[in-house]
């Protein structure tokens, strides 16, 4: 499985990408929405997952998600917003734009894995008691 991590912070890309890689994903990266669209254009097959930050220069995550949703050949991509924005209204907007999931930073690796499991992108990870 492949995943695209879209974040303008290299540190964040490394963290999110690290969790995904350890969960068996091959990880692609982009620093903003525009670059992410370019990455998608060059892929023979779209990735199964994109984890997208909200606030980025050039093109923000919400715009990116809206653009992806307009393209039928990208319908299979599961979109997850991964952002520090945690207001209810933001989450509602992201979901309305076509995001499947929303994870607020800071998060733990298991939180991300659990969301992936819920989306059917991972075998379940039982949380240690």
């Amino acid at each position, binding site marked *: 499985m492949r995943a695209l991590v879209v974040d303008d912070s290299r540190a964040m890309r490394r963290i999110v990408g690290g969790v995904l890689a350890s969960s068996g994903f091959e990880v692609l990266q982009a620093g903003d929405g525009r670059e992410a669209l370019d990455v998608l254009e060059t892929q023979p097959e779209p990735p199964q997952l994109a984890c997208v930050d909200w606030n980025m220069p050039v093109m923000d995550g919400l715009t990116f998600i809206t653009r992806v949703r307009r393209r039928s050949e990208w319908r299979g991509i599961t979109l997850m917003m991964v952002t520090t924005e945690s207001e209810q209204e933001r989450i509602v907007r992201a979901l309305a734009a076509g995001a499947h999931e929303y994870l607020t930073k800071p*998060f733990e690796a298991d*939180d991300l894995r659990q969301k992936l499991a819920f989306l059917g992108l991972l075998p379940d990870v039982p949380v240690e008691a």
Partner: protein
Amino acid sequence: MSLGAREFDFVRDLVRTESAIVLDAGKEYLVESRLLPLARAAGHPDVTSYVAEVALRRQPRSRTAVVEALTTNETSWFRDNDPFTALRTTVLPALAETRTRRSIRIWCAACSTGQEPYSVAMTVLDSPLLAGFDVTIVATDLSEEVLAKGRRGEYSQLEVNRGLPASLLVRHFTREGLSWRISPQLRSRVDFKQLNLLRPYTSLGRFDIVFMRNVLIYFDQATKQDILRRVRQVTAPDGYLFLGAAEMTRGLDDKWEREPAGRSALYRVREEDRSCVPW
């Protein structure tokens, strides 16, 4: 100063008799780290002197505090996913068909801070087959502290990150300051009550579904056996039991039978052991 042997023994015995939780030798560090805040709050320089006073004074309140401090309340929304998938796709549809009185009773034994019973409640609410059903969810735990949090229905951002799908978050919760408050509709579906699993359950009535997840692991064999047998007595003959991923009935109470459900399992009383009492 590290915890004295006599004080450790006192705590171990107290916790064992009051909650059945087994603290093996070598768990001194756990006792120390969990009791240090209590010791500090009570004005003691260390855990040993605090425990010595608790032992001497015989005050039920401080004993309860010690026991509660040694429970592990780790939990999450839709924990392990599969049990909730089984609930939605197998268990609730079966009950919707067989419960002609249109009433279903669910027990979350050891519910901790409420994530489990509220996950059950969300699953029930989203089951169209149960429209018009009267569904009761009773959530119990030993610890008053976790029950109070469950009743408040208020969770931090970090807590909602743990397993709660965003669509359910925005539908069933409202942001209040830095935390999220559960909707009155969901809140009113769960009845939180204090119950020690060592004590009788019969006053709770009978249940169609029992969630008793991630609590048996803390008990010894004999206690697990006793609890599984008594849970059987408050479960409908054709009811369902959910255990934690690391728990099972095998070798403990073989009147329960394991049925695979996705990557997890649920437990039902064996056909031949189902009493003929009409349910």
